[in-house]
């Protein structure tokens, strides 16, 4: 009996790049950078996923979506593994993903602006609103202000544009 060959790994990455993030469906799981590894171990496909935030409620849905997408393509033996280290960072968002976010109305993260616990300098700078210029994803104006560091999902902050007056989400750096 002839053995059916496994779908090759780049093909599987392509399939995964079509699975949307359940909270921000404009970007895919691969844009988000949370798929860390795809490998065949004997005849089982092992997909290694890292969570964005520890308590992100989308994590369970993401796993179900991965499983469904791969089963629909005929993968029968499948195992999802969680990997915590190295911890997910917004640095892993692809360039394409960042542009998709902006077009969707979410300002992409500005790398290197993570909270770092160095309070004195940061808090006073953030209160003056001068250390981060987040351009409005709608009109491009740099005249924006932070409403809250915690937005509609764990990964976002709330901002407002003082030119076009629209509120918007900023995908915060972590």
């Amino acid at each position, binding site marked *: 009996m002839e053995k059916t060959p496994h779908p090759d790994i780049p093909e599987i990455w392509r399939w995964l790049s079509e699975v949307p993030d359940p909270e921000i469906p404009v970007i895919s799981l691969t844009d988000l950078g949370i798929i860390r590894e795809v490998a065949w171990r004997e005849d089982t496909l092992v997909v290694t996923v890292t969570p964005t935030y520890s*308590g992100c409620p989308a994590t369970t849905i993401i796993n179900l979506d991965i499983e469904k997408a791969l089963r629909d393509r005929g993968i029968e033996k499948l195992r999802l593994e969680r990997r*915590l280290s190295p911890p997910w960072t917004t640095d892993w968002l692809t360039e394409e993903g960042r542009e998709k976010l902006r077009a969707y109305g979410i300002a992409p993260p500005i790398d290197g602006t993570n909270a770092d616990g160095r309070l004195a300098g940061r808090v006073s700078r953030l209160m003056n609103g001068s250390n981060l210029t987040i351009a409005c994803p709608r009109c491009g104006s740099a005249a924006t202000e932070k409403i809250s560091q915690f937005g509609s999902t764990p990964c976002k902050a709330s901002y407002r544009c003082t030119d076009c007056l629209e509120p918007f989400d900023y995908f915060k750096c972590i």
Partner: protein
Amino acid sequence: MADAAPAVDQAAFSEWLQRMGDNCLILGHRVSEWCGHSPALEEDIALANQALDLIGQCQFWLGLAAEVEGKGRTADQLAYLRDAGAFRNVLLVERPNGDFGQTLMRQFLFDAFHHELLRALKSSSDPRVAEIAAKAEKEVAYHLERSADLVIRLGDGSEESRDRMEKALKALFPYSGELFTDDAVDQAMAAAGVAPLPSSLKPAWDRTVSEILAEATLAHPGEVYQHKGGKRGVHSEYLGYILAEMQFLQRAYPGATW
């Protein structure tokens, strides 16, 4: 930390992990009580997101606690089926929410400790501890930034907000000392290079707290009597009420899932 660390006593290790998990769980639950009740929509969302981070971190810590314990229990079973005397959180995190200022002051006193602890745990001799800490530390840096920012704004705010923050500080500061007490479990973890001694985190915490209180124009309470007990399972009456609400479903409908 030390390469030639002695073997870790597994019972003490699990006990220590439960302290980590229970602090996150009980504070996460307390903060989630604000959901739908905050003074402003943005604050409601921020608090709910922090509660989520803490509950997520709790799942990692209690998951590892259950694994190390080796009795076949799960993180969910530890959270939902232990009684008050088996919880190992510090008294600070079970203090009632009070007003918004009290909630924020409690959060700030805890965040300043939590962030320092997680930073140290990133070099734990146990890689499982180090990787949870590395993940959580990034989230907690945002918690600390937010709570410090709001303590400053409200302390150095209106007459009323300042008055409330002063009262909150006076009420909660006597519960901060327990964060830095060392006992036999802590000594065992420190000897094995798993975790720093809590007392070793105190100078950095003192610096952060003094700096933020000064910016908030709030007087530092100084040396005051400190309540303790939670770490060894001796809790205030508040914990029972928290558990009654949190555990109701699993107690009434054992094994329920959705």
